């Protein structure tokens, strides 16, 4: 979230789309209720189902799963054609006035630079036109045909209300009503917040859906404002923290991209990531990349990382392609992987296409599962009859199952969806012989290191030199680990403007990432978390719930990254002169000599408004990007593509180009392409989701939750039920081209067939929470149905739109 949970109460309009906050985040949803009750805010919900969020909305509209870009593109078109945008904000804080290169083009659903064979784009033409001074060319009147504003207008011209209705199945009047409500927040005194979740990310073009929403918020001037922002409602207690620690294939903590194979030189590696300002005076904060990386290297390798060896640059692995979870299982499936460590994760249940994951696990030599609970993944080799038919004799994988402590038995921090780091305390010892996750990792590592010390082996340097100065080598304490990622000075850190002033003495914890240096004098595991544990102590443990502004900032409760800022890009809450657009809901303002206010300024404190330092400080231009440059795989503007399993014969926007039925830049492996189903055999759209009472595949091990929601069911609309002779309560079989599940049918008014491209489309709803390991009724893993294809950028599987058939069982 660019904003945070309590801030939702400051909104005038709340859009819930691609998510179901009332059911998936009930306690956070109270802030929507508060906004409605106290501010008279309106709630709009767009969802394939009439969910509990819809039930308390002021306006609800249905949508076909997989057509969100058509809808949002239609909103963008509406805003531009009716000129309902926040003009000053767009002109000064976005790249609307910037000129784009002459060779950038879009035709027949493809942008310039497409390589059909490789399914990738050469993105060179997706760039600004630079002037002779090296800066971007700009047209402040927004009239130049090559400026972003005009190109954007042209791109979304095709997203008419009629087209939206045709592609999404949303009644045209409903769509227009929603556009009107959204457009009402284009004035400086009205703000909309958009709350979304996996309904938007779990698509083969999910990243572009998010982009479309971000563009809308920029056009309306809702970024950096209380009650505004782009707000992902995330799904696990520490998914945000683990994301920030970047336990992902090609990135290091703090979103620092690992080098590619060809980046053999350290200096060039740093330069490529230290983005220089593209306009005068911009902060372009990534230009500090070298400070972040070198401090990380020192946290890893301590004294073994020196200037002479480029701070152990060659000890970090390089990347030739992403080895994300889908690619990992593909390689496993091809016999290219030997081992897998699975920590607190249940991929057999949670990843798509259970069949492929099962076959892949069975090819491993060894599997290590670390979890507080018994899971399907740890028992993948066991026969569970119809729920999971396998022959254990044929599975040669050695499996280790290690008992881990749960939250109540562990001390440490979680980062919530609103970027708040909150410390929690251990209440009780873990049961039996269970150990904390850190003790388990440390146990394996210290044994490995010992083996390398005794025997030698391949490239042992990084292992032998990894800094591991914990009081107990096989049981590092959370306090030691937190201090390590927050960071400390290794030598005196001085003020660059006045070297006699010492900001941090050698050995002291650092106050924040502004104190990080690229000369090896600082150590910090994650620059974004720098300052969470300064010299004063553990800020994450603070529990002061005072809120002097009444806007819900809670600056002294826990620690928010970055630098305890509660609303990102908050300089944008003020006009170019530094005066808040809405004085009743302000974060910071220019007081004549500095930026100050209720929040920590997301801006150089002494940046006078005349300097025109843009609020989007991570971008080299300092402004928000309506044109995304080369950032995304399938284009700088979002475009509607069908899901890989679509009920339609073609992409209605490009009926004559078979290359663009679905995302032309998304990766799909041969095995999975061969297993895509077609609408003739699988005429209905399947979509998966969660229920209020359950957390994924976890709470079927929790008796209370299994009691209140015991039995596996699917939801279908009344018309489909009648057509198939299915009555409410009948057992049904739902089938895709990859597998089937059996469940009870709930016939409901919550779903209804939609008219899409002249055809009647039915959606079958599939809640996900059952499996064959639990304390309650067994069920079928929902992901037996889903396709193994992911978003072109994030590789998030397309769980939300696929094809199924259904019959009475």
């Amino acid at each position: 979230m660019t904003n945070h949970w309590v801030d939702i109460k400051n909104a005038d309009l709340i859009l819930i789309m691609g998510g179901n906050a009332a059911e998936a985040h009930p306690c956070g949803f109270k802030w929507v209720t508060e906004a409605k009750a106290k501010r008279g805010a309106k709630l709009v919900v767009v969802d394939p189902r009439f969910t509990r969020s819809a039930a308390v909305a002021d306006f609800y509209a249905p949508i076909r799963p997989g057509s969100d870009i058509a809808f949002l593109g239609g909103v963008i078109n509406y805003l531009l054609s009716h000129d309902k945008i926040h003009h000053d904000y767009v002109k000064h804080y976005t790249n609307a006035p910037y000129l784009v290169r002459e060779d950038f083009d879009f035709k027949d659903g493809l942008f310039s630079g497409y390589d059909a064979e490789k399914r990738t784009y050469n993105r060179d033409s997706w760039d600004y036109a630079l002037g002779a001074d090296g800066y971007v060319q700009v047209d402040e009147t927004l009239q130049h045909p090559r400026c972003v504003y005009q190109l954007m207008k042209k791109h979304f011209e095709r997203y008419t209300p009629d087209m939206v209705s045709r592609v999404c199945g949303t009644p045209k009047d409903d769509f227009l009503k929603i556009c009107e409500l959204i457009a009402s927040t284009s004035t400086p005194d009205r703000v909309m917040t958009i709350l979304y979740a996996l309904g938007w990310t779990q698509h083969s073009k999910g990243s572009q859906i998010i982009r479309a929403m971000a563009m809308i918020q920029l056009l309306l001037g809702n970024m950096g404002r209380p009650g505004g922002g782009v707000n992902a409602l995330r799904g696990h207690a520490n998914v945000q923290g683990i994301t920030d620690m970047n336990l992902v294939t090609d990135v290091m903590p703090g979103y620092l991209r690992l080098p590619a194979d060809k980046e053999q030189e350290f200096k060039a590696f740093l330069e490529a990531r230290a983005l220089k300002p593209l306009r005068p005076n911009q902060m372009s904060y990534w230009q500090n990349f070298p400070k972040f990386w070198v401090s990380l290297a020192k946290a890893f390798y301590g004294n073994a990382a020196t200037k002479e060896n480029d701070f152990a640059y060659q000890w970090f692995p390089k990347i030739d392609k992403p080895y994300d979870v889908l690619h990992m299982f593909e390689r496993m499936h091809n016999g290219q992987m030997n081992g897998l460590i699975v920590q607190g994760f249940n991929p057999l249940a949670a990843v798509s296409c259970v069949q492929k994951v099962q076959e892949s696990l069975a090819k491993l030599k060894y599997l290590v599962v670390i979890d507080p609970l018994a899971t399907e993944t740890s028992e993948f080799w066991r026969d569970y009859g119809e729920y999971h038919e396998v022959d254990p004799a044929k599975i040669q994988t050695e499996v280790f199952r290690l008992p881990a402590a749960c939250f109540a038995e562990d001390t440490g921090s979680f980062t919530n969806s609103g970027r708040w780091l909150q410390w929690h305390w251990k209440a009780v010892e873990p049961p039996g012989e269970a150990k904390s996750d850190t003790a388990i990792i440390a146990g394996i590592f210290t044994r490995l290191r010992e083996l390398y010390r005794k025997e030698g082996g391949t490239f042992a340097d990084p292992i032998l030199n990894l800094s591991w100065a914990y009081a107990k080598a096989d049981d590092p304490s959370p306090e030691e680990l937190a201090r390590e990622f927050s960071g400390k000075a290794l030598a005196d850190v001085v003020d660059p403007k006045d070297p006699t002033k010492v900001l941090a003495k050698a050995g002291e914890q650092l106050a924040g990432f502004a104190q990080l240096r690229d000369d090896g004098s600082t150590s910090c595991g994650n620059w974004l978390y720098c300052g969470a544990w300064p010299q004063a102590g553990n800020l994450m443990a603070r529990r002061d719930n005072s809120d002097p502004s009444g806007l819900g900032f809670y600056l002294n409760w826990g620690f928010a990254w970055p630098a305890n800022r509660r609303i990102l890009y908050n300089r944008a809450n003020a006009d170019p002169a530094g005066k808040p657009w809405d004085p009743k809901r302000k974060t910071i303002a220019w007081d004549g000599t500095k930026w100050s206010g209720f929040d920590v300024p997301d801006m150089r404190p002494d940046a006078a408004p005349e300097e025109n330092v843009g609020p989007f400080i991570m971008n080299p231009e300092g402004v928000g990007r309506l044109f995304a440059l080369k950032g995304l795989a399938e284009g700088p503007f979002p475009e509607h593509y069908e899901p890989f399993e679509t009920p339609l014969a073609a992409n209605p926007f490009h009926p004559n180009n078979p290359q663009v039925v679905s995302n032309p830049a998304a990766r799909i492996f041969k095995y999975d392409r061969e297993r895509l189903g077609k609408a003739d055999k699988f005429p209905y759209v399947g979509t998966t989701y969660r229920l209020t009472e359950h957390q994924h595949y976890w709470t079927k091990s929790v008796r209370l939750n299994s009691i209140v929601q015991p039995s596996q069911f699917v939801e279908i609309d009344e018309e489909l039920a009648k057509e198939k002779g299915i009555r409410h309560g009948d057992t049904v079989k739902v089938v895709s081209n990859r597998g089937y599940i059996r469940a009870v049918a709930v016939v409901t008014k919550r779903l209804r067939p939609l008219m899409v491209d002249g055809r009647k489309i039915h959606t079958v709803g599939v809640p996900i929470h059952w499996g064959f390991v639990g304390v309650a009724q067994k069920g079928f893993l929902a992901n037996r149905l889903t396709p193994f294809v992911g978003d072109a950028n994030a590789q998030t599987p397309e769980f939300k739109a696929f094809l199924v058939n259904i019959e009475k069982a």
Partner: protein
Amino acid sequence: MNITRRQFFRICAAGVGSGSIAALGFAPGSALAEVREFKLTRATETRNTCPYCSVSCGVLIYTLGDKAKNAHEAVIHIEGDPDHPVNRGTLCPKGAGLLDFVRSENRLLYPEYRAPGSREWKRISWDEAFSRIARLMKDDRDKNFIEKNADGQTVNRWLTTGFLASSAASNETGWLSVKFARSLGIVALDTQARI
């Protein structure tokens, strides 16, 4: 006198007989009728965070046991933390059932091993688990680690063992896991955040 439930517990925990407090009129009006309230009187209250979704509701965990060396603590009650600015003491059905997660029959208690082709688990010691896993990992890494790619470029990566990290583990666990995985050269690394 209008005092909150939590203030009442603190008064009671100070050792004064709860009966006399009620008799003196210093109890919330409901106390006299609610015998069950008293179960938390001698409990230890610990602040924690719900492990389920990303609202990260504050929870209060109540344990029995006086922290003496041989007294075995047990969690007896979990409720929302009224001090928390986001959830203000409320919990959803998932959080409300947390006690049954902590005490689930499916909790793993000791390390186990499943041999190739076997139909069952075998209990093993931590020592054996750590030794065997380290051995398997080292053998795989020594054999398959890629120091240079086909073009002779230094890449230093290990592709044949992967690591899937938990999204419900703490930042401290995450940080240690990153150090562990990357020092070994693992690039087949991912988390639930992706899916």
